[in-house]
C-alpha cells in the first residue's frame, strides 16, 4: 500500500471515528417505492421505520426472507436508493441528504459487493479494468499508481497478477466474487455492504470467500453490513444481527445471544425452520401458516401478526379452544389472499349475468373450517357476518369486521421495541410488555433452550 496517495482523512469527519464507536446511526429509516402499475395504488413500503447503529469495525448482519426489505435497506445506506424518511447519521452529517463533494466522499467510503458475480461484472472489460474503474472515476493517484494499486488488490484477494488481462468469463464463481471484492475495496472504503456475497456459491467455495472477508476486515479495519438469508453464514461471520420482516427490524442483538435465546416470535420461527446438518437433531419446528403479506399493504398492528404462532388473543376469548382460534386465523388469511387477487373481467361478466363464480365458494371455506366445531357465539357471530360480506364480494369489509370483533392488540397496535436479554438487545413484540407472557413461555423452545 505504498502508493497510497494523500487523502488526509476520509473526507467526512464522522467516518474517522475510533473502532467500536458509532459509525452509522440509522433512525426511523423508511424507503418506499411508488407503485407504477396501479393508479392511486399504495407505495411499496420496503423499509418501514428501521433504527439501529453500526459500530466501527464490526460486522452487523441483516437477515430475513425475500421481500423483507434487507437489500433495499443496504442500498439506501449507500445511496443507491433514496430514503423516503428518517435519517442515517455519520457524525454530524445525514447521509440521506448529502450532496456534492460530501456525497462523493460518502460514495467513496461506502461500497457494495453484490450477490451475483455473473451479472455485476462487465464481461467486455478485463479484470484489471474492472477493478481500476472506480479509481479512474474518482481520479485516484496517477495512472501508474492506479495500476500498481490494482496489482496490490489482486494479491490481497488471492488472485494472481497475470489475471489482470483476463476477462470475467474465464473465471469461476468464487474467483469472480474475489474480483467483486477487490473492486469494492479499490478506494479504501470504511464501510462495505455485502449483499448476499456467498449465496450463489457452493459450500466449499463459500467457505473460502467467508474466510477472505474476515481476513480483509482484520487487516483493513473494515465495517461490514452483511445481508443474507442463510442464517448459518450469518451466525458464523456477524458480531450482531438484525432480523427483518416486512420492512421492520423485529429483533436486534449480539449474534450468539440471539441465536441461543431468540426473543422475538419471528426470530424463533425463522431459526426453528433452518434444517441442521445433523440427522440426529430433534426437529421441534414452528411451521408458519401462509405467506408474508404484501409490503404494499402491511397489517395495521404488528407486521408479523398474520402468521405469528403466539399472537396474543383478545380479552375474553379464554373459552375458545386453540384449534377454533387457529381456524379463525386461517379464515382471515384466506380472505386476505382473496382480497389481493383482482377479479378478472370474465369473472365480472359471469357475475353480471348471474353465473356462479369462484366467489361463491366462501361457504365451502367456512364449512371446511368451522363445521363439526363447538363454536361459542362470540366467535360464530362475527364469522357468519364476515362470511356474508365475503359472499357479497367485499372481502375487505369482512376482514375489517373480523379484526374489529376478534382482533387483539397485535392487530391494532404496532409493538414497541423492548429491551430484552442483556445489554443492547431489542425485540419488537407486545409480548415483552409486563401484562403478557413472554414468547418463550407460550411457544415451543428454540435454539439453545431446553
Amino acid at each position, binding site marked *: 500500500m505504498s502508493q497510497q496517495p494523500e487523502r488526509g482523512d476520509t473526507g467526512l469527519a464522522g467516518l474517522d471515528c475510533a473502532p467500536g464507536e458509532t459509525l452509522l446511526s440509522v433512525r426511523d429509516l423508511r424507503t418506499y417505492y411508488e407503485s407504477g402499475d396501479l393508479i392511486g395504488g399504495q407505495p411499496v413500503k420496503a423499509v418501514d421505520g428501521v433504527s439501529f447503529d453500526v459500530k466501527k469495525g464490526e460486522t452487523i448482519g441483516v437477515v430475513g*426472507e425475500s421481500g423483507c426489505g434487507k437489500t433495499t435497506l443496504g442500498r439506501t445506506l449507500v445511496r443507491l436508493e433514496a430514503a423516503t424518511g428518517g435519517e442515517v447519521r455519520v457524525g454530524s452529517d445525514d447521509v440521506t441528504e448529502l450532496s456534492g463533494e460530501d456525497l462523493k466522499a460518502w460514495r467513496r467510503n461506502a461500497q457494495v459487493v453484490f450477490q451475483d458475480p455473473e451479472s455485476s461484472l462487465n464481461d467486455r472489460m478485463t479484470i484489471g479494468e474492472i477493478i481500476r474503474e472506480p479509481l479512474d472515476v474518482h481520479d485516484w493517484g496517477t495512472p501508474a499508481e492506479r495500476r500498481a494499486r490494482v496489482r496490490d488488490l489482486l494479491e490481497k484477494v488471492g488472485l494472481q497478477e497475470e489475471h489482470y488481462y483476463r476477462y470475467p468469463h474465464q473465471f*469461476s464463481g*468464487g474467483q469472480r466474487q474475489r474480483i467483486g471484492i477487490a473492486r469494492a475495496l479499490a478506494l479504501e472504503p470504511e464501510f462495505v455492504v455485502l449483499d448476499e456475497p456467498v449465496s450463489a456459491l*457452493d*459450500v*466449499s*467455495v*463459500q*467457505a473460502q470467500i*467467508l*474466510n477472505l472477508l*474476515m481476513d480483509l476486515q482484520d487487516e483493513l479495519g473494515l465495517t461490514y453490513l452483511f445481508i443474507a*438469508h442463510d*442464517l*448459518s*453464514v450469518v*451466525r*458464523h*461471520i456477524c458480531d450482531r444481527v438484525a432480523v427483518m420482516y416486512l420492512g421492520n427490524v423485529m429483533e436486534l442483538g449480539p*449474534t*450468539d445471544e440471539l441465536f441461543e435465546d431468540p426473543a422475538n416470535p419471528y426470530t424463533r*420461527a*425463522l431459526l*426453528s*425452520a*433452518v*434444517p*441442521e*446438518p*445433523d*440427522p*440426529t*437433531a*430433534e*426437529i*421441534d*419446528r*414452528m*411451521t*408458519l*401458516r*401462509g*405467506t408474508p403479506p404484501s409490503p404494499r399493504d402491511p397489517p395495521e398492528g404488528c407486521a408479523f401478526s398474520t402468521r405469528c404462532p403466539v399472537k396474543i388473543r383478545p380479552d375474553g376469548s379464554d373459552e375458545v379452544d386453540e*384449534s377454533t382460534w*387457529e*381456524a379463525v*386465523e*386461517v379464515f382471515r*388469511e*384466506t380472505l386476505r*389472499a*382473496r382480497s389481493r*387477487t383482482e377479479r378478472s373481467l370474465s369473472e365480472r361478466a359471469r357475475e353480471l349475468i348471474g353465473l356462479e363464480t*369462484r*366467489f361463491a*365458494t366462501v361457504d*365451502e*371455506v367456512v364449512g*371446511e*373450517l368451522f363445521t363439526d366445531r363447538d363454536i361459542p357465539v362470540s366467535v360464530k357471530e362475527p364469522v357468519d357476518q364476515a362470511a356474508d360480506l365475503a359472499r357479497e364480494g367485499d372481502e375487505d369489509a369482512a376482514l375489517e369486521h373480523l379484526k374489529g370483533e376478534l382482533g387483539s392488540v397485535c392487530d391494532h397496535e404496532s409493538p414497541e421495541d423492548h429491551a430484552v436479554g442483556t445489554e443492547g438487545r431489542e425485540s419488537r413484540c407486545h409480548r415483552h410488555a409486563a401484562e403478557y407472557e413472554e414468547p418463550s413461555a407460550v411457544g415451543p423452545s428454540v435454539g439453545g433452550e431446553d
Partner: protein
Amino acid sequence: MAADANATGVDERRSSARQTQSDDVDAAESADDRLLEVENLRTVFHTERETIRAVDGVSFGIEEGETLGLVGESGSGKSVTARSIMGLVDDPGELLPGSSVRFDGRELTDLTEKGYESVRGSGIAMVFQDPLSTLNPVYTVGNQIEEALSLHRGLSGIDATEKAIELLEDVGIPDAARRVSEYPHEFSGGMRQRAVIAMALACDPDVLVCDEPTTALDVTIQAQILELLSDLQAEHGLSILFITHDMGVIAEVADRVAVMYAGEIVEQAPVVELYENPRHPYTRGLLRSIPSTQQGAERLETIAGEVPTPNKAATDCRFAPRCPEAFDACEEVHPVPVPVEEGAEDHTAACLLYPEDEPRKAAVDRHAAAGDEDSPESAGSTGGDSR
C-alpha cells in the same frame, strides 16, 4: 384438509422408519427389493471442443418408501442424473451404452419417447427447482392438473375438477376450490411448488424425483414444503430421490445419502452414519466447510481449488488435485466404490484408502482391477480432467 396442512403447530416427525431402515441394511442390499435401480449410468454431452462426462458411472438403488438423498455441488452431475432417470436427456446429450435404469424390474433406457411418457405418467414423477418450468403460464393451475388426470387416470369434466381440488387440498393449498381456477402467476413461490407437487401426484407415482425442490424458497416456506413431502411420503408410501446441495436439508429428509463429485458417487451410506462417520476425503471436507447455526465464528475449513469438469474417462481419482490425503497411486488408479471396511456393505467409498482394514497395496490393486473390467474404453487413455 387445507386448514390442517397449513396450521401452525409443533412438528415432531423424525420417523422411526429411518431407524428400522438402517438396522435393516442387509435386506436392503438385495437388488430385488429396489423399486428403482440405476446401474453404471453414464450421461455425456458433446460440445464442439470436447465431450463432458456429466454423469460417469453412477450406481444406486431406492427401496419402496425410502428417501435417498443425492448431494453434491454445482457441476457434480446430480441434476443430470435425475434427468437421465426421467428420460429427459436431449441432444447434444446421450446415455452411453451399458447405462441402465430399471423401474419395478423394467429397463427404461431403451424405451421409446412414447414408452417413457407412460412411465413418467404413472410410475415416476419429477418436481423441479423452478415450478414455473413445469407450469404453463397461459392455463389455470386447475386445467393443468386436470389434463394430467385425464391423461393418466382417464378422468374428465366435473370428476377431474373435483379431483384437482382434492389434490390441491392434499398439498395444503387453502381455499382450493377457488384457487383451482387461478393462473400460476397468481400463486406465491411456495404455493406454486405445492401446485407442482399436486400435478406430480395426479399421476399417482411410486417414485418422486425432487431436484432441489426447495432451493428457490425462503426457509419458512421450505419448512412447509419439506413437511408436506414427508407427510405425502408416509401417506402414499412414496420412494423419493431427493437432490440438493444443502447438507442441512439432506440430514432432515434422507434415509440414505449418496455424495456426488465430478460425475461420480464418491460415498454412500445411511444418513446418520454418513454425518457421524464420513470416510471419503471429499465428504469430510464438505461437512467441515459448512457453517452451522449451532456454532460460533472460527475460521472455516475449506477445500482448496474448484470442482473439475470431467471430459475424459477417469484414469485417476478426480479429487486427487484437491485431496489432503492423496498419495502416489491416486494419480494412476481410478477408485471404484468399495465397502469402507469388511462387512460394511451399506457404507461404500470410492477412494483408494478403502477398505480401510485391507493392506494398502491390496486395496489399490482391487480398485485397479475393478476399474479395468468396468470401463474398457478407458484403457490406454492418458488424459486427465480439465479444470
